[in-house]
């Protein structure tokens, strides 16, 4: 019983991290129809930057903001000078951004080496929290759940309750008509893509404090983020929330109950879902 509860908390806390990464990914895909496979590399790179900042300044907050901001700059340059050239060619985008991810991964390997590195969490987040039923749980992962909910609520308000959010939703519906309404869709892309990059970089710092950072981590996390986005439906914020929960919980219970088949527990149900709802839970026809 205790284990089941523990795994549920594990799953939800992984879901919080996956949501941070996938929310930006899904919004930028919904608006720009760009498949950016470098998103996992953004996560890893942001994490490494945050790691160095945390070592230099001793501040986790600086690490989170700095890791996010560094990826905003890199993401902007990659968007402007590389991805933009691919137009609407999704295959070219995938090849290009996979290549970019390899380059970022190699640069990171040269700068930070191949060991597992852990971003230093602040003192008050170390240690354990005692939950009802005498369950000891790592404080950091427990607080991460609330952080995920907080960021999710902020994004939800931004998306559904502000005029900028309305413009982005309109862009997901019909880019051309937004353009004809007098709105520079390119400028909107830059903003949303910047937000997505920031979230990815921030997720790297947050994730790096418990999953650690190492060469190859970018691909592992990318697979999870892709599954979240596909399950939730491309371009849907609510979808990313539900998708992250589903993937987080499937992963936690799969590892616990059927460790030899944990990947199957994750991908089996999703293959079934794709069979009956190819656009994902909240996805719409484009």
């Amino acid at each position: 019983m205790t284990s089941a509860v523990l795994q549920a908390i594990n799953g939800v806390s992984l879901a919080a991290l996956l949501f941070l990464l996938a929310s930006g990914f899904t919004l930028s895909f919904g608006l720009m129809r760009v498949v950016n496979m470098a998103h996992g590399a953004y996560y890893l790179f942001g994490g490494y930057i945050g790691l160095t900042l945390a070592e230099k300044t001793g501040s986790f907050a600086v690490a989170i903001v700095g890791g996010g901001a560094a990826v905003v700059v890199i993401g902007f340059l990659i968007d402007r000078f590389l991805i933009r050239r691919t137009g609407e060619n999704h295959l070219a985008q995938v090849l290009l951004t996979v290549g970019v991810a390899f380059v970022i991964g190699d640069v990171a390997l040269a700068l930070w080496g191949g060991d597992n590195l852990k971003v230093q969490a602040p003192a008050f987040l170390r240690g354990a929290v005692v939950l009802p039923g005498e369950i000891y749980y790592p404080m950091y992962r427990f607080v991460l759940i609330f952080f995920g909910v907080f960021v999710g609520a902020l994004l939800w308000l931004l998306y559904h309750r502000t005029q900028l959010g309305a413009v982005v939703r309109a862009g997901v519906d019909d880019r051309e008509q937004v353009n004809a309404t007098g709105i520079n869709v390119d400028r909107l892309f830059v903003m949303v893509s910047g937000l997505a990059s920031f979230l990815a970089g921030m997720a790297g710092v947050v994730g790096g404090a418990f999953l650690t950072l190492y060469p190859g981590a970018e691909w592992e996390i990318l697979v999870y983020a892709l599954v979240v986005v596909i399950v939730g439906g491309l371009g849907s914020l609510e979808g990313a929330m539900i998708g992250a929960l589903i993937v987080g919980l499937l992963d936690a219970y799969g590892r616990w109950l059927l460790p030899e088949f944990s990947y199957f527990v994750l991908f089996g149900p999703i293959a079934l879902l794709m069979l009956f709802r190819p656009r994902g839970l909240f996805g719409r026809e484009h």
Partner: protein
Amino acid sequence: MPDALLSVRGIHTYYGDSYVLQGVSLEQREGSIVAILGRNGMGKTTLIRSVAGLTPPREGEILFRGASLRGRPPYAIAQDGIALVPQGRRIFRSLSVRENLLLPTSGLARPRGGRWTLDSVLREFPQLAERINHSGGALSGGEQQMLAVGRALMANPHLILMDEPSEGLAPRLVQQVEGIMKSLREHGHAVLLVEQNFALAMSVADYVYVVASGRFVFEGPPAALAAAPDVLDQHLGVAGAKVN
């Protein structure tokens, strides 16, 4: 016409690989309604899209208030004062009626201000006021058409491009659309109208062009078109049609 609001000069426009507009010219005065008539697939929508900058012409020139639109992206043309009421309305389904209307006033659209505000548009279309918090996708066809017009008005444009506003509407609603267009003219907006509904176009337009295979085969006031049975018969298939 020195005081032309819109002046299209010999434009050639391709849609993908197909050569749609093959040298089309038209002039529109401030505050007038100009209708483009013609059968399906003759290039009417392409003309609207050329003016809006969505499908820019490869040759020829479009002048709006004396300035060339060449190379200007659609959002800049919209900011210049040309609003589009597109075929099929293209209401933003994820947005409420209010959000749809307010979209052109977002800071990103560089709103120009003017007599049309959320309040005045809702006074003009009281049905929209009743459904202000509904999602755009939940409206009926007629309501969507009003919303599309209201959305265009919110930009306080000089010229409104309307592509098949009566399409798919019940006769009673077509009458309403007719009323809307006449009231737009009274408010000083020019309307460039593409329409399949012959009677509607003839009753509202000040000047008419007939397009066939990417070229204009007739231009003149509606009365002159009504008196040209060969044009009606050959290009519009409305021989003997009664004109109000």
